[in-house]
């Protein structure tokens, strides 16, 4: 079964690879992955969809949490998170099907982002899997080209983020002991 993991990590070079490396080292293939900055530019939020053996799921998430650049990795489930994906789809229907295609798009609340004599480009969002249906319907009208964003998830329950406070370096610690007062 597919599993959605959300990872909050420091926006640093190599951080993305550290997370994906944990999965690839165990031979897991990533179904989708999205990553972008959060409102704090110091951090990024990553959503990974992957099929991990249920027995070692907790282990993989623990290993992710162990990574120095990771603030928090957690599993997203239907109960605790909202999960969406976007599809950009271009279709070249027969001229006589154009109206029908638009009608179908409307049913899926797809928005037209480009329209020309050649065809349409649609943008549509939905839950993971839901969009398959839209793609299937469109396919029946002609040749399509599809790009999927990969899933993104946001937690819907209150969760405490634990950020570690700064600690003094060894030298500063020694100085502190020497002075008998904490460093300003």
């Amino acid at each position: 079964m597919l599993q959605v993991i959300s990872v909050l990590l420091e926006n640093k070079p190599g951080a993305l690879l550290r997370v994906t490396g944990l999965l690839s080292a165990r031979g897991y293939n990533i179904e989708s992955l999205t990553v972008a900055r959060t409102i704090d530019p110091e951090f990024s939020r990553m959503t990974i969809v992957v099929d991990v053996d249920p027995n070692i799921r907790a282990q993989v998430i623990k290993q992710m949490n162990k990574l120095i650049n990771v603030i928090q990795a957690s599993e997203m489930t239907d109960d605790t998170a909202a999960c969406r994906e976007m599809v950009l789809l271009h279709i070249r229907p027969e001229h006589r099907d154009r109206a029908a295609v638009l009608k179908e798009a409307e049913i899926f609340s797809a928005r037209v982002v480009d329209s020309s004599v050649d065809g349409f480009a649609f943008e549509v969002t939905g839950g993971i899997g839901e969009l398959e249906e839209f793609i299937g319907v469109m396919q029946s009208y002609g040749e399509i080209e599809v790009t999927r964003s990969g899933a993104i998830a946001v937690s819907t329950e209150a969760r405490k983020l634990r950020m570690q406070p700064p600690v003094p370096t060894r030298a500063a610690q020694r100085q502190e002991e020497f002075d008998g007062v904490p460093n300003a």
Partner: protein
Amino acid sequence: MPTQMNGAQILLECLAKEDVDCFFGYPGGVTLPLYDALYDHPIKHILVRHEENACFAAEGYARATGKVGVCCATSGPGATNLITGLVDSMMDSIPIVAITGQVSSHLIGSDAFQEADTFGITRPCTKHNYMVQKLEDLPRIIHEAFYLAATGRPGPVLVDIPKDIFQAKGDYIPVSSIHLPGYKIPGEGHAGQIRRAAQLIAESERPLVYAGGGIIAANASAELRQLVESQDLPAVTTLMGLGALSSDDPHYISMPGMHGSYAANMAMSDADVLIALGVRFDDRVTGKLAAFAPNAKVIHVDIDPAEVGKIRVPDIPIVGDVKKVLQKLLKVLSEFPPKPRRSWITQINTWKREHPYDAPRVENEIKPQHLISEIDRLSGGQAIVTTDVGQHQMWSAQLIRFNEPRLWINSGGLGAMGFGLPAAIGAQFARPDKLVFSIVGDGGFQMSIPELATIASYGLPIKIIVMNNGHLGMVRQWQELFYQNRLSSVKLDCFPDAEKLAGAYGFKGSTVSDPSKLAAALDVAIKEPGPYLLNVQVTSFENVYPMVPAGGAINQMVLGPVMVTK
């Protein structure tokens, strides 16, 4: 007033602030500016003969002291040569900071001379790694590296520094604090869990302490001793935990696992409560997992949350620093008087008596166990012993006593041949007061033979004991037992003359094959003020027993040629 320095000088300044007195390395093109700065800096650089051995030596230093070991290599081949040592310290949780040079920033990605993607290559081999991109980041990164290496579950941290960063001049602004928002260090453990653990221990009939390298890393030997004494608990220590509890402690059984003792493995199998302290339920300890400690409730204390429940799901998980957890546990346990468990202790003593480790001696040849027992006699539980990997390592782990932690230095998790000799170099630099034995096989010795030059040039009084059976003994043993004795590429039929070899490097050496002359030969080695190479020709076809065949239950040991089952 900030001082103008170049990157190399700033690096050395930061190392000094981290109390680095010496480090092990090998120079090269891109580290020229660093070595130039070293020319008039008080930090001592130990020139080894291969970068892999720089990392192994740094490990020897770290394992002997608990301090962070530091090694250094140039870009490209220098950095790739460090890899085995990095993985080794990762597996055994040894604090290491590795500094590598990198080609200048503008050349990165251009396939420049001696360029390798060190940052990419070492990512899965380290606890964390860095590539320095700006001079002003250098002090912060160096202090972070030391902090990460030494705290939590220790491990190797690599810092890759491009040549232009070494050369760039700037103001040195000391860093006084480290901010790693995602780096959590577990503390003293959950009070409720510790209380539950105390209750379980107090009520147990057949408790057993299973202690590992975590006790040594946490400097928790004193607490471990208090625990076994106050509650009268029998204890086993893993390969990585030898010395965590003195071998002479009456509560100590020995090492469990594939080549562990009969008593240790039987106790593991029969215990009703297993107190696992700083261990990771390694496959060489557990054997067949389904049959491992089948009747035991498990208390697992570890600083790494990912270790707790990784292999065996504990009944009472406690994530925390084992030293702090034990201190709290001892406090709670003091409310409970030690429970008399006479039949359990008697049972363990019977197992011990019935099947001690076998150390045969014969008249016509030196049995390897005879050699190791002689070293044990000379050490008296006091000497530092480093080993390579294989039969000699297992016999050493079985037969040599360690009365304190940080005396036994071996490559446990990775099992890296060639480890023993360079690790002894690091250990001897760390503990110049100690007698250091480097017990190596004739295979592993030849993997790190260039380090004889390092030993000679620094005059390190290491006693190199080659347990020479003319074979890759452990592989040969497996070919004999599991591959119908079809001995394939395990015969080492050329070994240099030890006296001439040592002599060529300017120190003394000899070969002994007569058992009646062994004690005297070892005596000469020890009395020699400088290094000594003693090549001991031992029985070629001796097997290490007891042995739990791979994947077998640990109470199904092969004790010798005859299979003994419970």
